[in-house]
């Protein structure tokens, strides 16, 4: 007669963990949230409210716990922790997404050149002391030259030349340069616009340039609808009378520009049209001394060798 009791006790001890619902429960393990989308059973709701709420909650939480126990665990110092998946419910953020930090001038250069960032340790090995010392700061390696007890001074140095002070000044100037560059980067970051804005400004500039590129500076151009009147655009005429010196300068300026173009064309031709780049070839053969100098040297060399031969005989 006790057996049935025992069996019942055993059965109640190990109640089923399965939850059966018409609509499967929606579990968001990332937010530890479960949503039961089944309509509320009105009869049980009316008959015993608290009991109904508790049993619904129990079923929901049972499903959530089942989902949580399925997840992979990882051991940590505080015991096993369960890895949670990213949440499926989207909640609005409290603050906007962080804006990416604008790159510094060096970072832009490094990116263009493909230079990898190297991590510098704070400590460096000192061969003399046979220990790790600070790269900078207290007893830093960068103060090595200042701190040494004897200095090499050039013979032609000034009488009042202080090598310690000179080394210190040099270090301080490096620090100042770094600080200056940092501030410049900050200033640049503040004025930095988005790519779209930059493009807009560029477009406006180009448009303004084209509108002033006729002889009348756009006075007789057909106006488009929505075209704004250009501001700060003035035709400027040189005075009809000017000093001879000024006129000469102006003409020479034009001529020099033309000359520049001609030279450039010549250089370009030298570089591009022929199969052999003559300039480059000469530089390579003469080891960077130039054609004339190397020619002179060759001539000299042959004379000398001739002399030598004669001398031997």
């Amino acid at each position: 007669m006790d057996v049935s009791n025992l069996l019942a006790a055993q059965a109640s001890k190990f109640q089923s963990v399965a939850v059966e619902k018409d609509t499967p429960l929606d579990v968001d393990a990332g937010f530890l949230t479960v949503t039961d989308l089944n309509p509320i059973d009105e009869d049980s709701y009316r008959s015993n409210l608290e009991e109904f709420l508790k049993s619904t909650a129990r079923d929901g939480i049972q499903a959530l716990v089942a989902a949580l126990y399925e997840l992979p665990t990882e051991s940590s110092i505080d015991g096993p922790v369960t890895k949670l998946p990213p949440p499926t419910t989207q909640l609005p953020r409290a603050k906007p997404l962080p804006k990416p930090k604008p790159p510094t001038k060096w970072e832009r250069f490094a990116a263009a050149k493909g230079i990898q960032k190297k991590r510098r340790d704070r400590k460096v090995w000192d061969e003399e002391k046979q220990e790790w010392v600070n790269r900078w700061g207290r007893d830093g390696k960068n103060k090595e030259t200042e701190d040494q007890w004897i200095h090499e001074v050039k013979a032609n140095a000034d009488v009042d030349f202080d090598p310690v002070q000179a080394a210190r000044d040099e270090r301080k100037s490096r620090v100042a340069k770094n600080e200056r560059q940092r501030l410049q980067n900050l200033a640049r970051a503040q004025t930095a616009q988005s790519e779209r804005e930059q493009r807009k400004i560029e477009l406006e500039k180009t448009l303004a340039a084209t509108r002033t590129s006729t002889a009348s500076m756009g006075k007789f151009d057909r106006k488009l609808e929505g075209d704004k009147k250009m501001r700060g655009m003035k035709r400027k005429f040189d005075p009809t009378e000017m000093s001879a010196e000024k006129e000469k300068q102006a003409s020479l300026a034009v001529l020099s520009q033309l000359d520049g173009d001609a030279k450039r064309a010549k250089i370009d031709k030298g570089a591009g049209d022929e199969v052999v780049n003559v300039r480059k070839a000469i530089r390579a053969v003469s080891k960077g001394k130039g054609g004339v100098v190397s020619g002179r040297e060759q001539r000299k060399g042959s004379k000398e060798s001739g002399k030598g031969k004669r001398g031997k005989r």
Partner: protein
Amino acid sequence: MLQTVKPKNARSKRALEAREPKEVEDQRKAIFVHGMKTGEVVDKVMKEMMALKQPHAISFSEKNAIRPFEDPSSLEFWAHKNDASMFVISQSTKKRPAGIIIARMFDSKLLDMCELGIERFVSLSEFKTPKSSPGHKPMLHFASELFDTHPRYMQLKSLLMDLFNGEVIDSICLPGLEHVISVTVAPSDASQTSSALPDDTRHEDPKNLPNVHLRTYTVKLTPSGVRIPRVQLTEMGPFVDFSLRRHQEADQDMLKAATKKPKLKRQDIEKGLGKKKKNLEVDQMGDLRGRIHVAKQDLGKLQTRKMKGLKGQSSEGDEGAGTSPDQSEVEDTSPRKRQKRG
């Protein structure tokens, strides 16, 4: 508005940096504001809800003359000053007795609000049962089909989730889950569920909306004979029945800005946020693409069409006892077929 402060020392600099926007955000801090006039019940509800929200709760216990639905400027000021992004405001007026307003902010601007009337309240102290330790994360349970269909209840669910559990965490210690906050909607008339269109709800009388039951329980896990334990719940308190009152929906533009997702770094995707996944990448269309490496194929072992004439030549000697293992693998299918035929 407040001026932007320039930090004067390292400590204040760190404090300011902690307030800057982050990709993965912290738990929302909530300010519990005492309105001009409240009742004893409302005060108790506030106190116990605050206990559930601790340690991310700030109490404004003095009388504050605010009407958030008319002028949210003081909320915005407080949000900025305290770096808080949620508000729970208690208020009791003749027209709307015993009410609390849950407000949510985005970028120190008001995003959305929901006013709840307290219909019934049972305090935590009335249950002589074990309580959860403060600061532990609750499990949330929502029960009703309205949480998926009705905009008012969807908003309420979102607000409550944000208030109690709105933090993205990557891992949790399961024994630390001690309590449950369960939210159930009373059964509604059939006519309401059918007319649950957003246009209707805006002008719908909130008196027709069914009440919401908020219950808190402690969890006890008992062995069940299988790996998953059986859950048992014990009443913890507070128990509150809410009725829905006024609300303010989120501005569309603001909501769009608030639900922007951070671009996950390729590294994070490859890592699978915890799991290591090799040769997986997300392409520009957002599809997950995998790469598989196939070893160089040995064409000698390629199974081609079987012909009687060819078979006799290649495997006449092999049919005997001295078959090498890989050859037998290739020829594996032939005896079976023969058996079938026979």
